[in-house]
């Protein structure tokens, strides 16, 4: 137990500190943000990818070992305690005792105990006994098993799971990594509200198994993924794309669809690069630089960058209908539209992690809210003495027993039922 407490504390501190460091950046990024010395420490400690680092995995591994050990060690004792609760002779030290009770049945009833069984004890005295909520003894154990399943499901998912992304505009078909599947984007809609805010992104896709040619259609939107060929497809994000045409001496040379951030190498002069830097549907030149007033295509503008043999030649914005001329080449941007980025995931162990979460939840409910209690009444002359034992929350149980006993002595039933959960 002290080891588990120490381990949990170290894990909490590790998680908290790691959250303060931006994850997954390059060394130079940390240098510019924290300085060279701190950046070196971050990299040395793998704090740039803390949750996948060796030391974090080791901590999680120790936690799993501890959970397994704890569950195994506690199991026999737990079974014994569970069985003992049904045996009046093995009740153990009472949490509270009340004497001078005439009708013990009313105390059992007030505490919402099951109907007691009557018997003569070893001393030949009349005795009533009942126990309830024995299942509550299993709460912490079940919770441990649930956490173990959760960690196992997550770890196996991280290890064996696969994730791919594909992006494009309607009409395009692209392979989904090396999965053997291809995704055709049939349609992509951005539904806007009256106030110009986005209500939903919806993509109609066709997933094709390249080997067999078998294909299935799906409609996906945010919060509504679709499962096809064992993969789950998500509408992940969106951005702008545009048609880019290159003319040489006034004649068509090439035509491509570029998404923002993509580049095009001129077909007969590959050292000449046209980079599609940004797109503004309702362009305005603000103090801070180019911006857009709205999401409507009122005044579209394309921000481009031209490079030749790795040297930047220029960067500027083109309005609708404007051309970019570089020697004998003319570049035209038109037909702006939204592209969609679709992610696909295959993780066979997500159900295990989910089951682990649910089992943890069940364990916690049993551990925290199902309080095992036993009540024994022994006839002592004309009156009865009632012994109560509660495995959790003894003070409140004793108070409830006292209230029930007082009510019985006064001759009125007390239905408080503190242990009724």
């Amino acid at each position, binding site marked *: 137990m002290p080891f588990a407490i120490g381990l949990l504390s170290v894990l909490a501190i590790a998680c908290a500190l790691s959250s303060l460091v931006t994850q997954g950046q390059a060394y130079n990024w940390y240098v510019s943000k924290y300085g060279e010395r701190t950046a070196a420490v971050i990299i040395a400690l793998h704090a740039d990818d803390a949750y996948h680092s060796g030391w974090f995995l080791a901590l999680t591994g120790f936690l799993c070992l501890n959970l397994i050990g704890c569950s195994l060690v506690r199991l026999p004792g737990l079974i014994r305690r569970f069985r003992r609760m049904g045996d009046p002779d093995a009740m153990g030290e009472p949490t509270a005792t009340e004497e001078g009770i005439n009708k013990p049945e009313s105390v059992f009833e007030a505490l919402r105990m099951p109907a007691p069984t009557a018997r003569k004890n070893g001393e030949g005295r009349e005795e009533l006994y009942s126990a309830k909520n024995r299942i509550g003894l299993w709460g912490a154990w079940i919770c441990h098993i649930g956490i173990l399943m959760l960690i196992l499901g997550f770890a196996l998912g991280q290890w064996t799971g696969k994730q791919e992304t594909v992006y494009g505009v309607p009409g395009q078909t692209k392979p989904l990594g090396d999965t053997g599947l291809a995704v055709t984007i049939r349609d992509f809609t951005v539904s806007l509200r009256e106030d110009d805010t986005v209500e939903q992104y919806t993509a109609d896709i066709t997933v094709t198994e390249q080997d067999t040619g078998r294909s299935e259609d799906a409609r996906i939107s945010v919060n509504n993924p679709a499962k096809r060929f064992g993969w789950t497809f998500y509408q992940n994000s969106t951005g702008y794309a545009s048609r880019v045409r290159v003319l040489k001496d006034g004649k068509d040379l090439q035509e491509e669809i570029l998404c923002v951030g993509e580049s095009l190498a001129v077909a007969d002069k590959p050292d000449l690069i046209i980079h599609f830097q940004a797109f503004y549907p309702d362009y305005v030149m603000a103090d801070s630089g180019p911006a857009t007033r709205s999401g409507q295509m009122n005044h579209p503008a394309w921000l481009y960058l031209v490079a030749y043999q790795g040297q930047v030649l220029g960067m500027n914005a083109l309005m609708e209908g404007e051309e970019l001329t570089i020697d004998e080449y003319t570049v035209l941007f038109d037909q702006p539209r939204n592209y969609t980025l679709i992610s696909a995931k295959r993780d066979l162990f997500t159900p295990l992690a*989910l089951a682990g979460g649910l089992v943890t939840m069940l364990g916690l409910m049993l551990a925290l809210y199902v309080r095992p209690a036993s009540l024994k009444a022994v006839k002592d002359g004309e009156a009865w003495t009632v012994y109560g034992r509660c495995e959790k929350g003894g003070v409140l149980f004793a108070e409830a027993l006292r209230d029930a006993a007082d009510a019985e002595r006064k001759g009125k039933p007390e239905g408080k039922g503190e242990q009724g959960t």
Partner: protein
Amino acid sequence: MIQTENVLFTIVMVGYFAAMILYFVFAATRKETLWKAAFGIQAGCLILHTAALVIRGIGAGRLPMTNQYEFATCFAWALCLVSLIFIHKYRFPALGIGAAPVIFLIIGYAAMQSREVRELMPALRSNWLAFHVSTAIISYGAFGVSFAVGIMFLLREKLKEGSYWDQHIPSLQKLDQIGYRSVSLGLLFLTFTILTGAIWAERAWGSYWSWDPKETWSLVTWIIYMVYLHLRLRRGWKGKAAAMFAVIGFICVIFTYIGVNTFLPGVHSYA
């Protein structure tokens, strides 16, 4: 409609402030009528607060739990609800002395946020929103009460047995149990919150856990309260130590709620 909600919100804020002052004066003067008046004002404010939330929900056409203002006002509402239930259930009127200032601080924080009703971004348009956020609100409310009980425990320790406060503050043993029960409630609902959030994230982004700062700090909070439970069970860490742990735990809850949103932006930045 929003105008009505604003008026109700202002009344509620003033009401919570008045209840807090009455609890303080009760602590100073020990006049019975004062805590009863404070309790009554809080109960009345809870009804008006509920009305304000319902009106905002109708006006917005959705559950009012999606931005900083809405979460803060719901948090104050839940804290008020849970504290009133605990006061009633455990016959513990002085709990208000610890809980009322926290309620007022949270509603004050809500007052500083923008009350503009905004449409939901696509990721938030999900039925999981109701489960995820409402369980978080109850959880935070219960942890707020455990904080107040912890404070009352530390105060009760300074008071002599047989004093006036015996009628209004339960014994240290019972306070310890009440604190444990409020932590239990908070922890159970926090687990619900994390679980429903993971299921929702899986549907929305295809990743049920991505170490987003809010996720991470929720886990940190969960671990802290788990350590609290282990210490109670196995190391006999009851009484003062447990009370102090509950106070520290709630500070962590507040950081998870306000600190993370302010200093560690992530996918929960709108919350």
